[in-house]
């Protein structure tokens, strides 16, 4: 009997609940951490491990089987779905977790208040290089951008730059927080990133074109689609979510999770 009990005791760790890993978007990492903390507090049995690295890194981890959930601030690419199909015979599962107004950051001292999409595109592709060209001070525009593994980078490039190349003068920074810090310290800086990172900077009101009204990112404007640069933030799973994963994702998209989404600075999906 003692032997049986000993064997069971030794075998227990094998049956212990495996942590659910969430890896990917740096834009989403704070939100993911807050959601995980709150969920684990409310549901003692599940362990969630959150890490960043960028949307591309998260989806790559999903493809090679090293994460359970990929957090991505851009839709998964066709080429990535092809890899999932080839390796795991699945097209993956998509869960929109939040909406985000992709904000354009300006220094609080910058007299420029609003920008059209075309102006933002021209600034980041290097056609506009001085603030005075768009009604600002006579000063060179300092561009802050993200690394190319970032979903924010990809989304901005696809939607705002219309897949054109970034200016070689754009400085690549690791994470949205670094972009915000840089713009906060640089009167001539401009950056872009999630609406949740707003400390020390000001959002530019964005106009779809010259004739359109200038819109600031807010719950109403992002939800209604009036703000021209809004996107979903996603969780992707390789397989149909396990009981633990499903419970967490259901909770994150439910009232309690969406309240945290709002507190972090993003917008609920429902």
């Amino acid at each position, binding site marked *: 009997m003692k032997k049986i009990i000993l064997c069971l005791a030794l075998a227990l760790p094998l049956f212990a609940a495996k942590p659910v890993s969430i890896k990917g978007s740096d834009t989403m990492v704070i939100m993911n951490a807050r959601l995980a903390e709150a969920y684990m507090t409310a549901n003692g049995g599940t362990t969630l491990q959150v890490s960043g690295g960028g949307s591309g890194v998260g989806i790559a981890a999903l493809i090679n*089987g090293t994460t359970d959930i990929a957090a991505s601030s851009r839709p998964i690419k066709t080429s990535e779905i092809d890899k999932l199909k080839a*390796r*795991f*015979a*699945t*097209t993956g599962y998509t869960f929109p977790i939040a909406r985000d107004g992709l904000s354009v950051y300006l220094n609080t001292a910058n007299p420029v208040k609003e920008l059209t999409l075309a102006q933002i595109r021209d600034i980041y592709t290097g056609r506009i290089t001085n603030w005075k060209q768009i009604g600002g001070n006579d000063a060179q525009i300092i561009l802050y951008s993200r690394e190319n593994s970032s979903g924010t980078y990809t989304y901005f490039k696809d939607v705002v730059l219309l897949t054109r*190349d970034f200016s070689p003068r754009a400085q690549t920074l690791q994470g949205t927080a670094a972009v915000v810090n840089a713009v906060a310290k640089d009167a001539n800086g401009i950056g872009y990133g999630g609406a949740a990172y707003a400390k020390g900077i000001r959002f530019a009101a964005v106009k779809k074109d010259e004739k359109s009204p200038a819109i600031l990112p807010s719950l109403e404007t992002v939800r209604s689609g009036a703000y021209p640069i809004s996107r979903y933030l996603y969780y992707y799973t390789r397989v149909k979510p396990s009981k633990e994963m499903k419970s967490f994702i259901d909770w994150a998209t439910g009232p309690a999770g969406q309240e945290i989404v709002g507190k972090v600075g993003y917008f609920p999906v429902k």
Partner: protein
Amino acid sequence: MKLKLFFAAMLFAATPLLADDAQDDAQDEPTPPTTEEVAGRVKGMSEALTEVRNTVDLLSKLKVTGYLQAQFVEDERSRNELAGAGTRNFDQFSVRRARVKFTYQMTPSSRFVLQPDITSSGVTLKDGYVELTEPWTTWKHTLTAGQFNWPYGFEIMYSSSSREVPERSRVIRTLFPGERDRGVMVSGLGFNERFNYRVAIVNGTGTTQTFDANKRKDFVGRLGYSFGAVDVGASAYRGSDLVATSTSSNGREFDKERMGVDVQWATPIPGLGLRGEYLQGKQAPASGTSRTQSHDVDGWYFYAIQNLGTRHQVVVRLDEYDPDTNVDDNAVRTINPSYIFHWDAHSKVMASYELIESQANDPDDNVFTLRYQFSF
């Protein structure tokens, strides 16, 4: 009292020395830099940082990936190794593939790719091409020039590092030896990235020969469509081979044609994927032939791949190749069960048995392969 006077005298005598030390300390203390000096230093650091960033940015455009396959093969043909001339041992350890792929993406619209294969057999160039992608449409039409995979079917373009059995099916290995050729290709992706096309003009001689034997160039292409879980493709190859015949040592042109379809299905059964491809065509005869026309060939393969969790894969591939459909009982069929254990994201171990059944005079030629692959 005398003692106090003595100490006072000593202190008095030492005062100039202490004063000198204090003066020295004051001289050693660095003068606080001026605002201009600090600004200059910061500017200098900023310039240095910009230089470093420029260098890092350039390096980040270079992507290096690769894989190595070390294996042990036990081949039934080795059983006759003592039978005399013409037989040899096939059981051996080897490095099957060792590829390093260099991709330099200078801009989103231009790319350079070089992939040598370095094994005990020597160094060969696998891929070597440049790509230009047009930036004006969502199709991203791309021009590729150099040496690349024949854009035909599924298995040719599916990387050997991802394939679930050690080698490609017999029909592909025979009709597309080396899987690559030299030429130019146009490709694109449209209709919400569901449709893709690749068409190429190539030498038609593959990569085993340095020169193209004939003036004629070959056409090869594939059209693909994705329905989500199901992907389908139709491929065609049309060209010719210059082959020396029994009546003409200079050779004559023989038709070289292939047409086929391929399907890949991520089934609703968790982790189960199915793949298949069928092709038929005309194949030039071997050198020295007395034939005057190409003969008809056909073949197919079918994969069933079952994932068990994230680490285990059980696979069966069936394939058949008929080297001349007008001749009876000459097809070769292979049953290839395989098991793969994914140690981590970089390492996997494969055990595979290739059961080869020839319809006529089936020889002992089955092959067992145990392979370890590391990729990065």
